């Protein structure tokens, strides 16, 4: 194993019937971190996760997970990982306990150990009271929690989470984030895919933005946002043209453009310190201001900046 990298992917390519779903990506995931693949649907996230988890055969490139080559030792890789699939992958007619039991048996966990882990994990995800309930009677959040518990049952080195909070309500989503953090703090490396900006931003140690089968940019959420280096102040004034003149003297202002939301003033320094002077300058010129809005860069801005497209969150 090379250093601390628990996942190493080099020049990965994958094609379905002539359609290139993954087009040459390379990245590494460090042991113990939460690493996110952020991108729109169809960006190649699921394909990548399917290759990394040995569900899809490797076509081109090299992939090592937990120290094993996915193409040469898929069995070893399977023993080392846990997966929470994108959609609810639960047998509707098994109970919560049976679902866990089935999984534990698939991995040949000895009976007593299996029982103990089931009890522990169901307590952690707060499903202890539902153990004899059939999974079809669980709520969406409970189903997802059960799947996380199941994914953790084998004490995997890496837990793959494919869109873990897709379709969940905001409150349940926050709880899921807590669980994921908890799992990570206990030492499990997390690889997650998401198309939710805040999810990637809130959870990840590092993010790769993926679009059209390629990694566009990688870094910590801070790095990615700072790379934009720009705070934006939105000003609505009585006279945008004259206000624009009035702002000429302020050195930190990089550009001023007129937009439907008023003037958008891009600032190269920390916007909150610059804001009072902007207001003073406009007022000083005798122009009334009806609204002021300071916007720090978000992951949305990062995404738009690097891909030239918006990734609108439609799930919530």
């Amino acid at each position: 194993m090379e250093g601390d990298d628990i996942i190493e992917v080099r020049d990965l390519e994958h094609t379905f019937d002539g359609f290139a779903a993954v087009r040459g990506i390379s990245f590494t995931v460090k042991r113990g971190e939460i690493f996110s693949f952020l991108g729109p649907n169809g960006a190649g996230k699921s394909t990548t996760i399917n290759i990394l988890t040995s569900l899809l055969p490797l076509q081109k490139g090299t992939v090592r997970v937990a120290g094993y080559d996915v193409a040469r030792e898929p069995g070893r890789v399977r023993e080392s990982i846990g997966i929470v699939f994108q959609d609810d992958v639960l047998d509707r007619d098994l109970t919560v306990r049976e679902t866990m039991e089935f999984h534990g048996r698939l991995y040949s966990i000895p009976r007593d150990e299996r029982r103990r882990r089931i009890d522990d994990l169901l307590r952690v995800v707060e499903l202890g009271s539902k153990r004899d309930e059939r999974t079809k009677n669980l709520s969406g959040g409970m189903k997802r929690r059960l799947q996380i518990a199941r994914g953790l049952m084998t004490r995997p080195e890496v837990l793959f989470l494919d869109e873990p909070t897709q379709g969940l309500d905001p409150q349940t989503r926050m709880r899921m984030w807590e669980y994921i953090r908890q799992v990570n703090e206990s030492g499990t490396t997390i690889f997650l895919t998401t198309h939710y900006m805040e999810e990637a931003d809130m959870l990840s140690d590092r993010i790769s933005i993926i679009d059209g089968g390629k990694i566009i940019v990688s870094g910590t959420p801070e790095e990615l946002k700072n790379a934009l280096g720009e705070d934006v102040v939105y000003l609505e004034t009585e006279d945008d043209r004259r206000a624009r003149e009035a702002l000429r003297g302020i050195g930190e202002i990089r550009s001023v453009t007129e937009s439907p939301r008023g003037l958008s003033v891009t600032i190269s320094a920390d916007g909150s310190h610059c804001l009072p002077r902007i207001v003073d300058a406009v007022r000083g010129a005798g122009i009334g201001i009806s609204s002021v809005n300071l916007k720090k860069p978000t992951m949305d801005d990062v995404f738009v900046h690097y891909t030239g497209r918006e990734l609108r969150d439609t799930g919530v």
Partner: protein
Amino acid sequence: MAWEFFTVYWREMIRFVRFRTQLFASLLQPALWMAFFGVAMSSNLDRFASAIPAPSGVFSVDYLTFMGAGVIAMTTLFTSLFGGISLLFDKNWGLMREMLASPMPRTHIMLGVSLSGMTKSFVQVAIIMAFGLLMGVQFFPGFSAARIVLSILGIFAFVGVFSLGFLLFSSTISMRLESPEGLQGIITLLTLPLFFVSNALYPIQAFPPILQALSIYNPLTHLVSGVRYFAIGSDFFAVGARYTSTTADVLASFAYLVVFASVMYLLARRTFQRAVVT
């Protein structure tokens, strides 16, 4: 030790007893065949058959007894051909990925499903035999207790191998198909010739030569022969024809079924090892 297939078996059996309607239907259906088709046919055929009397000294059985073996075979055939369908649902619901992404050898998926299907056939066959005896089927005529036990074991051995063969076949097509409708179509297409070009309901002695030749290659014919040998005897007369079989004949039939099941196993293994389900 690789016992993971038992996990798959365990889940299949949970589902078998949990779906009450399905369970009930699968147990009732063969009994209904016996009760309606069996009674209706035997009341007719026994009338015609009396025109051809049994040669003296040859033990003669009525149509219901003759057909009892056929119903055992038919039920096993239907149940086994449909047995793979749970794989199709697992695949479509995404559940298959959990198994494929686990370290369990992939052949265990088909083994677990097939063994559970075999168990279901055993339960059905036991019910048919019990129900049949109640209805007056003359199985095990004048047999000693030891011979009855041995005969039942023989019947189960035949049913077991036969059902495994068709379950593995069903698993193979289920893995290759996308929709349950497709599987249903293939099964319907297969059951008709398999069922009617066999000795399940009538003697093949009167078939045209081509059908007769075909029926020899039909696994169902061999299953029925085996069941009749164990349930009725090695020499009997029914529906106007005399049936004699030697131990060698029965062993050959059994060997044929073993070969059939083995070929199906190899086919299924190939399919499962190459399966990509995402």
